[in-house]
């Protein structure tokens, strides 16, 4: 990174959410939808995008109102703002994508208590100007989307032998039913975290070696 100053840039904030502080694998936030809806890759993508929508708009509005909302009532105010956008996306999905809404079920309404959104409102949007807050919302939202899409692809591959509904496994493959159930979710996420920690460690090790050479 050439830019070492403390000043936050749009791109830097976006990448921070996407990679450095990935909400799922680094911050361990928003675990319920991460595990609950990830039995098929399509569900993962749509849940991620719905959450991103709410995150971007709630960040934007909380940031715009950050100097107006009194500190004492900030939590109820945030909740009202977040819940309004959740209701909007819920009603839109019921109108335009009723099948998907039926699959995702209560989890759409539960976006309102997704800790990612609340944590970003409290720790970012409440302190930063609107443009940066939107960048943070986009980065965090897409970081979340990518993580849960990855998780749901792995689960769908082993649980149903397909990816995004296309069968990829040979016909002789016996789907592992447990991957579609609750235990499969926990165990897959645990194993993926081991892999991601290992990759991070390798990347950090390479970074250190390069620094040593320079």
């Amino acid at each position, binding site marked *: 990174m050439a830019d070492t100053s403390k000043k936050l840039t749009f791109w830097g904030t976006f990448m921070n959410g996407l990679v450095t502080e990935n909400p799922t694998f680094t911050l361990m936030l928003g675990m*319920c939808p991460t595990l*609950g809806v990830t039995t098929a890759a399509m569900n993962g993508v749509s849940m991620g995008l719905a959450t991103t929508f709410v995150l971007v708009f709630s960040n934007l509005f909380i940031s715009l109102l950050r100097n107006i909302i009194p500190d004492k009532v900030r939590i109820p105010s945030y909740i009202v703002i977040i819940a309004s956008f959740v209701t909007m996306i819920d009603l839109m999905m019921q109108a335009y994508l009723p099948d998907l809404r039926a699959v995702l079920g209560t989890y759409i309404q539960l976006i309102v208590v997704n800790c990612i959104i609340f944590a970003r409102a409290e720790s970012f949007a409440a302190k930063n100007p609107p443009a940066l807050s939107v960048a943070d919302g986009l980065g965090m939202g897409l970081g979340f989307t990518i993580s849960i899409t990855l998780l749901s692809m792995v689960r769908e591959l082993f649980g149903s032998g397909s990816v995004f509904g296309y069968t990829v496994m040979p016909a002789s493959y016996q789907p592992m039913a447990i991957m579609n159930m*609750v235990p499969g979710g*926990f165990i897959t996420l645990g194993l993926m975290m081991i892999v991601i920690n290992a990759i991070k460690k390798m990347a950090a090790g390479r970074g250190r070696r390069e620094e040593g050479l320079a």
Partner: protein
Amino acid sequence: MSTFLTILIGQILVNNYVMCQFFGICPFLGVSKKFDTALGMGLAVTFVITVASFFTWLVQNFLLVPLSLEYLQTLAFILVIAVLVQVVEMALKKLSPTLYQALGVYLPLITTNCVVLAVAINNITDGYNLLESTFSGCCAALGFTLSLLLLAGIRERMELSNMPKWMQGFPGALIMAGMMAIAFMGFGGLI
């Protein structure tokens, strides 16, 4: 009477909100490092869910339905829950400062525990009456407490054992939770 027995067994064992439905995973993983804090958290959540189930049912049937404002359900319910948590916090501060101290930061976090909202919404979807809603809320919360305590007990043991380094912390806890969920699947045939 049989309805209540079904709710009791269903909410605690068969459809345990954490182990069988993936609700409330954040506190489940976040607060399960120590048995004592897990117990405190479980009790506080039990109280909030029980009272929240009571009030959200009233709000739904005496406020939202007569005014045909059902689409504001999410908003109304989360406000009820946020207010309740605030009340519990203030009451505890006055009545039992020791417990208040022990729970610390976990108290306000109950608002964003999705079990609370999920139970409230499911009570309405399942068409329970006021008494059944409150009872089902209480049982769901006990189920949450049970799984939280089980994982906390296991994790306290895991601290002492010699685990490979890459398994320590969250990955180990997640895989352990997966094993627990497999065990809970065994209750599937009870109802």
